């Protein structure tokens, strides 16, 4: 019963697999258990998402200017997809719950916590991670300022701090020291490099 309903849900199952193989995969993975008879299968608009393996979703997105396609379990966060699927380890996992800012990336130019965002929600999205902001040979002014002002110690929070600071400048709401501090409060630094982070951001802000 549950399996039949799931099959209804997964109308766009991979063309290569037969119905029987598909059901075997589904039950082997236990994904059928996720659906009860109460799931409203009929009329579910599944056209946007292609289920290439049972329950998985295929997502096309642009990461640091490059087209990428992900085939992921819907539970995978953008953070884990970046790190585990795309091997972009610059974005860090601190708390995994929106409480530290280590995972901050830019989506459509806006800073967000990638740990509270599903990869499956990123169809068509433009994501920028620290790797896309600049590298050793082409540092972004914010990276240069972080180096100059010694705005880190262990460096774990730094990719998130830099992405967040770039988002802050783009938003354009924070100018004074207190406003910048408040606007950066979503990025915790366990090493306490706050004063130097503030100095780095102020330098880029004032265009020195």
């Amino acid at each position, binding site marked *: 019963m549950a399996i039949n309903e799931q099959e209804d849900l997964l109308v766009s199952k991979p063309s290569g697999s037969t119905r029987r193989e598909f059901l075997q995969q589904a039950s082997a993975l236990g994904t059928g258990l996720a659906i009860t008879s109460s799931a*409203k299968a009929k009329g579910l608009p599944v056209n946007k998402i292609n289920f290439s393996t049972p329950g998985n979703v295929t997502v096309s997105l642009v990461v640091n200017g490059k087209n990428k396609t992900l085939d992921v379990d819907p*539970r995978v966060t953008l953070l884990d997809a970046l790190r585990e699927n795309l091997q972009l380890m610059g974005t860090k996992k601190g708390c995994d719950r929106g409480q530290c800012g280590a995972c901050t990336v830019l989506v459509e130019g806006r800073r*967000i916590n990638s740990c509270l965002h599903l990869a499956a929600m990123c169809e068509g999205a433009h994501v920028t991670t620290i790797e896309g902001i600049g590298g050793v040979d082409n540092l972004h002014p914010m990276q240069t300022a972080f180096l100059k002002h010694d705005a880190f110690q262990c460096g774990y929070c730094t990719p998130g701090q830099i992405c967040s600071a770039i988002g802050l400048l783009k938003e354009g709401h924070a100018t004074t020291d207190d406003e910048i501090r408040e606007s950066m409060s979503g990025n915790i630094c366990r090493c306490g490099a706050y004063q130097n982070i503030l100095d780095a951001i102020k330098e880029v802000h004032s265009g020195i």
Partner: protein
Amino acid sequence: MYPFIFTKVNDSAGAISAVGTNPHAKFISGGTNILDLMKMNIEKPELLIDINNLDFKKIDVQSNGNILIGALVRNSDLAYNATISKHYPLLSQALLAGASAQLRNMATTAGNLLQRTRCYYFYDTVMPCNKREPGTGCSALTGYNRMHAILGISDKCIATHPSDMCVALAALDTIIHVQNASGKRTIPFADFHLLPGDTPHIDNVLQPGDLITHVEIAALPFANNSTYVKVRDRASYEFALTSAAVALDVSGGTIKAARIALGGVGTKPWRATAAEQFVAGKPANEETYEAAAGLALKDAKGYQYNAFKIELAKRSIISALQNTGG
């Protein structure tokens, strides 16, 4: 996190047909609360419907002066909207006092209304909690209840509603617009969230299948003279211990009308109607503010670790009244 089926819909008709009346289906908008709760196995949707493509992203001023806010307007966009920051500073300030810049870029108007309590026992799945598992008991009643409610409590649950935005909305005449398979309806804000009573697991009056489309704020000219005061354990990125949203209509040193709502102290966003009525017609001075604060907290009940909130809430109200009334 338990497995679920993910789908993305493009319009409200698609969202409503996807959800049907399935109690195991959930919408996801900003994701900042539901994903956190799913990671902790507190929310266990079997079907997750991404509604971010829906067209509820605008803030419109209606011909009657009311403001219609789309369900998907991000908290940051609402806070910095020119009309909101000019005419409803209490709402702008409340939003900006919540969470972090990143979270506000994600969080939506509807999601913020529906965020669940931050009671630590609610989050800790090995502890009894009537809100999470009806009938198991309330760990906070005799536990560490420092952040808990002092108004609107029951012997089944003393969890606060954690939203800052909702405190400002409670002070205004707000209406929630809802749509489901049988049509559209509106719910006055005061009726939207529920007191815990014997059913703390039910936070609000929404039914399975209900989609919030808009939040409407009635025109209130004197709301341009308003403020939000939030007291918390650290200067930013922290939930309220107490908060107060106040709007005052003052003329010649006399208060003509007032709006007062409290956060961090109620089991739902708390409108202090008795205090509002008391200050109307009174001089805008310390004596009035102190009496109003006393009235607002008259029925408050403190527990072992949160009794300090009674005095702190009074001071928050007085401070907000001073800011707006002079």
